[in-house]
């Protein structure tokens, strides 16, 4: 096997991993945003309950 093939294979494997991790980052950021919103809603609800 020539060195060129191996470096192309290594590049290919890295791209495979990169694209997948990028997609996971997007998903995680979306979930992060939803959780932030949810916490905010719950805080608001608590404050309303505590106020006389």
């Amino acid at each position: 096997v020539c060195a060129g093939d191996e470096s192309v294979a290594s590049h290919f494997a890295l791209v495979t991993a990169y694209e997948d991790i990028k997609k996971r980052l997007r998903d995680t950021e979306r979930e992060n945003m939803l959780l932030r919103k949810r916490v905010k809603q719950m805080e608001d609800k608590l404050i309303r309950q505590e106020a006389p």
Partner: protein
Amino acid sequence: MSLYPEVTSTGSAMETSNFAHVIFQNVGKSYLPHAALECHYTLTQFIKPHPKDWVGIFKVGWSTARDYYTFLWSPLPESYTEGTAVNRSVVFQGYYVPNDDGEFYQFCYVTHKGEIRGASTPFQFRASSPS
């Protein structure tokens, strides 16, 4: 496995390449450290398996086939007809798999000649997985 036009410098080489001759199935986003890890994969009709082919766990960003973290010989199918696809699996024992180290790993299928014929999506080893 998809190919990405953003990396067009080697894009055409990739499309006609041998890197997707072995497809890893149901790869998790994370696995428990120090627990047996089952790896399932399909040898497509384009690859002729050899008893010295192997499956390695590699840290993402590896540069040569010698950079494997651990490996297992890929078992030959009992009855194999050339030109057919077969499903195979190997089990990495817990004491050979990486620790919870924050790194990403992937499986790669390497032939007896040292050619990479398949790479999986990445995964981590985590003591508890959030999803």
